[in-house]
């Protein structure tokens, strides 16, 4: 009887392209409505811990999708998202804190004027975080895209390290190693998932445009792309600035979720985690980035037990802090060796492929019965 429920799909059986578009629109609207109901239910019924995980997943999807644009779609292996997240987080945090809070926080040296007197609303601060990060990316693009391949990775890695040093030492702006504390927890499910969906929407639109095709052409063969009139520098910069904008916003969301930020939060490990997400999801696939981010963020919580003491069949395991990273690293090595294309490869989600998959599974179940 379970099969009959699936007949629903055949109502929209594709007679023509127009029908398919209509069918896909209806399915998308249904899925969106279903998701809204889920969020609304989660918001009032889930535990604080579960909501925190859901927020984390949304924020990491934002970053993974943006990071994938430059690493997977444009094929420029770079290692700077931890730096862009930091820029966004600090920008948004400094802007939302009230002057009194700033006076209390900056005990080593006071925050420089005019930042000390500014206090903006959360949405405006998020937008500012995006814009400032995009601006930083734009300035960085000039030196960064003079090099290719491994050198690009090294230069962007270096940028992340430089930014750490700046965050630790530019005390009148960042409050140094003390970081910023007591931020208002503005980030809720609506903000994080709203921005998550906005990011996916914008990225997909860009990737499916001529600019997206130009980015992929650069990934496939940069010289051949240039021989077809594509300005590689401009196209890479576009991808870089675009992804920085959303990574900056994600930084702002993250800051107002955990309410305390310090330079040590934005180490290279953060970038490494993101790299695992987009590689496992499938480098070059936006769908893959979403799946990878959700899987790794959620998996990180599920795997917490490996870092805690366990007693099993009389054998006592003490629990090793950092064990999760070992598991993730092993997973990354496994994927690199045996499943380089990750979960999605370079394929994207479509309703048709989902329906085909369901039909296949149903067919197999029937065949087996």
């Amino acid at each position, binding site marked *: 009887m379970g099969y009959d429920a699936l007949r629903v799909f055949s109502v929209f059986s594709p007679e023509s392209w127009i029908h398919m578009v209509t069918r896909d629109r209806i399915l998308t609207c249904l899925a969106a409505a279903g998701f809204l109901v889920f969020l609304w239910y989660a918001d009032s019924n889930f535990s604080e811990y579960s909501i925190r995980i859901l927020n984390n997943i949304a924020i990491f999807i934002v970053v993974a999708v943006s990071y994938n644009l430059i690493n997977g779609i444009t094929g420029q292996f770079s290692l700077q998202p931890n730096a862009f997240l930091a820029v966004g987080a600090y920008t948004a945090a400094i802007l939302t804190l009230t002057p009194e809070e700033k006076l209390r926080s900056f005990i080593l040296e006071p925050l420089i004027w005019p930042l000390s007197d500014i206090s903006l609303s959360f949405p405006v601060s998020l937008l500012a975080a995006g814009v400032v990060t995009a601006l930083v990316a734009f300035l960085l693009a000039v030196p960064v895209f003079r090099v290719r391949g491994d050198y690009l990775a090294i230069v962007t890695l270096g940028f992340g390290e430089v930014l750490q040093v700046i965050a630790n030492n530019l005390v009148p702006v960042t409050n140094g190693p003390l970081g910023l504390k007591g931020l208002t927890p503005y980030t809720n499910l609506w903000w994080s998932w709203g921005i998550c969906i906005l990011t996916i929407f914008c990225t997909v639109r860009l990737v499916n445009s*001529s600019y997206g095709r130009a980015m992929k*052409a650069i990934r496939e063969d940069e*010289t*051949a792309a240039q*021989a077809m*009139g*594509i*300005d*590689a520098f401009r196209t890479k910069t576009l991808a870089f600035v675009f992804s920085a904008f959303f990574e900056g916003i994600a930084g702002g969301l993250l800051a107002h979720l955990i309410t305390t930020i310090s330079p040590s939060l934005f180490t290279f490990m953060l970038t490494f985690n993101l790299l695992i997400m987009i590689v496992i999801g499938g480098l070059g696939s936006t769908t893959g980035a979403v799946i990878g981010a959700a899987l790794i963020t959620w998996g990180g919580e599920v795997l917490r037990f490996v870092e805690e003491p366990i007693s099993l069949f009389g054998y006592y395991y003490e629990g090793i802090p950092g064990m999760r990273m070992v598991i993730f690293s092993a997973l990354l090595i496994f994927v690199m060796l045996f499943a380089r294309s990750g979960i999605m490869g370079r394929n994207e989600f479509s309703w048709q492929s989902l329906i085909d998959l369901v039909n296949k599974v149903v067919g197999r179940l029937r065949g087996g019965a």
Partner: protein
Amino acid sequence: MKIPLLNAEKLSVVFGGLSALNGLDFQIPVGEIVGLIGPNGAGKTTAFNAITGIAKVTRGRVLFEGRDITGWPTSKVARTGIARTFQNIRLYEDLTVIENVMVASHTSVRYSPVEAILGIGRVYADERRIRHRAESLLETMGLIDTAGDKAGSLPYGSQRKLEVARALALEPALLLLDEPVAGMNPRETIEFGALLRKIRKDLNLTIGLIEHDMGFVMDICTRIRVIDHGIPIAWGTPKEIQNDPKVIAAYLGEG
């Protein structure tokens, strides 16, 4: 005398002490099909690379439509009206056949990235125009049935044709073909020659080509430049070239 569409004057390319091209004079008059031939390692591909900004010109200059384009970046050369194909086929293998062609229309896109994201302005009109143009080019090259396939999955001969379709999407004034019929069988070669003539006439193109298949070259080219070891040795009509003792010596390895 008419100004040639492309005029390479005393073009030299030196790679770390090795002279790959030495004082090449090479003209492509408007509307003609000019062949660039020579034994292996003669510097033919280097000449095309120098013209399109892929290889750095050491001495000499390249004039296109009377304008000095020496040292221009590759993408700018392409936008000014010179499209090319590659000897060692360089398609965007993981993109579909039609996407490969559509990429070359990127320079004609009039919408901004912001318009693309918001889905406003000329986005839909432009995308429709680019797709139609790509479809008609694939139709011309006989590749329309494979439009949705990955470019890397095409057979060799089709990949060569796809490179031509992609180059044509740039709407160039000059088309440079680097060994367009290499790897094709005799029948495919004859068909390709006929196709090339038709395209040249329909699109009002000027063509420069490198090729080792002498039958093809002599049949299709209106003029031929012969080089050997980076040095130009002969220039003339196919008939003149066939009877030139210097050319015969270079090919047969005399003297």
